[in-house]
């Protein structure tokens, strides 16, 4: 709680300093608008513009992330239980972690068109890898002593998964999900940068082309809020899952 207070005060301090400096040095709005000017963007016509463009970005981010989470859990589970699946997939998952996936974004547009599906697929693609790799590591890392204990009391394979492996991997899973959530929003914005007629990524490009820096900044603020919101949902889900397991 105290940490939050200090961080909050620091943020307010930075905003005040930022505001003061833009006035003191007469920094042009085009280069760096003052926080108050950016805040003003949320009212009136530009406010409506921001809201209209937030919705598609949010829907694509959340759906891409949800698909990645589902796919990641299924693939990681399959990798723990099937040697063939693991030996086939694992080297490629690692390889894909290494290559700059953003470079593949134009291909998704080529394959899936300029609509929702290309951005959805690209967000899923971006967000899938950290989730599957984290969860596979977690499921494999479950303490062998605990697995043996469960087996010794007559635990079936399914029980060893649900009672031991999965609860031990929950921490890993959510670490992967937190990265995956960020990756999903990056994937959607990249997609919107390439081809889109709406969304916050599109709005940023459009406002930049019109030298409307306050609107660019306002859109970035909304993206941050969106990212934090999804992150918050993941944290909330983590608490709920932990409470379920804590309840035995």
């Amino acid at each position, binding site marked *: 709680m105290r940490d939050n207070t200090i961080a909050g005060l620091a943020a307010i301090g930075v905003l005040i300093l930022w505001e003061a400096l833009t006035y003191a040095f007469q920094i042009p709005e085009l280069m760096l608008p003052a926080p108050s000017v950016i805040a003003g963007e949320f009212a009136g016509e530009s406010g409506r513009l921001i809201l209209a463009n937030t919705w598609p970005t949010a829907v694509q981010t959340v759906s891409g992330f949800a698909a990645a989470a589902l796919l990641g859990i299924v693939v990681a589970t399959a990798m723990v239980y099937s040697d063939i699946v693991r030996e086939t997939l694992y080297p490629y998952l690692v390889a894909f972690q290494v290559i700059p996936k953003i470079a593949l974004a134009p291909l998704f547009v080529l394959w899936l068109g300029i609509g929702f599906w290309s951005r959805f697929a690209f967000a899923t693609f971006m967000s899938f890898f950290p989730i599957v790799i984290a969860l596979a590591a977690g499921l494999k890392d479950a303490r062998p*002593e605990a697995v043996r204990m469960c087996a010794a009391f007559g635990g079936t394979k399914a029980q060893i998964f649900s009672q031991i492996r999965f*609860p031990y991997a929950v921490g890993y899973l959510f670490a992967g999900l937190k990265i995956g959530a960020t990756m999903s929003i990056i994937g959607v914005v990249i997609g919107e940068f390439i081809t889109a007629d709406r969304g916050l990524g599109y709005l940023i490009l459009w406002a930049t082309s019109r030298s409307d820096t306050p609107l660019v900044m306002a859109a970035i603020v909304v993206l941050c809020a969106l990212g934090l919101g999804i992150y918050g949902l993941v944290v909330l889900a983590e608490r709920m899952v932990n409470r379920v397991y*804590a309840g035995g």
Partner: protein
Amino acid sequence: MSGSVAQLAEASEPYLAVESVQKVYNAGTSHELEAVSDVSFGVPSGQFLSILGPSGCGKSTLLMMAGGLEQPTRGAVRIAGAPVTGPRRSTGIMFQDPTLLPWKTVLENVLFPIRIQRLPLKDYHQRAHELLAMVGLGDFANKKPHQLSGGMKQRAAICRALITDPDLLLMDEPFSALDALTRDELNDALLDIWQRTRKTGIFITHSIREAVFLSDRVIVMDRRPSRIVDDIPIPFPRPRSMAIQDSKEFVDICAHLRGKIAHA
């Protein structure tokens, strides 16, 4: 001394029988390792047997085979006449590591075998509380494992092993990671529990004193080839107290076993 063991074994049909058991890991490869070679012994019902030996003598492997977690390469382990082919419900087991699940409370950990065996949990609450009270954890039922000391965790693991009221209790060096004082306390607690429940028990240890103090009988194993080098009864009547450890007889038995291990 070995003569009296033979009589003891003949006197009652062994409840647990280890019959010419051999265990080879990675058979047929360059990493082939013979963990147990041709070991036979029987444990009568209600007997507390300790298996003593240096690390690598295959004593833990033997226990895992009795628990159904490993299969012998040759021979068989039988419990009440039936060969052990997998974990059985009426075997309780304790490991060197307490392996309490950190997200569960002490009570839920004790009830874990009940959950795994899909028995009605609420029928066992009373028993779980009684067991916890018996090992001095009555006030810790709703604590999480991280709030417990090492000794307390192992006490909870004793309760977990006993929750199904098993007829056989297997213990794989359960106290070896504890400090000497805590270990004495837990030996005392285990003796007390044994006094009340009288199950058949197999206790793996490399502490001579612990083996003699707890057991009705001690088997000494050697490593490579892993075989039984001694098998002696421990004559002290029960209930036992710490005081017997200072008696000449106790010290003599320990010295005898130490000689066996040294020459093993």
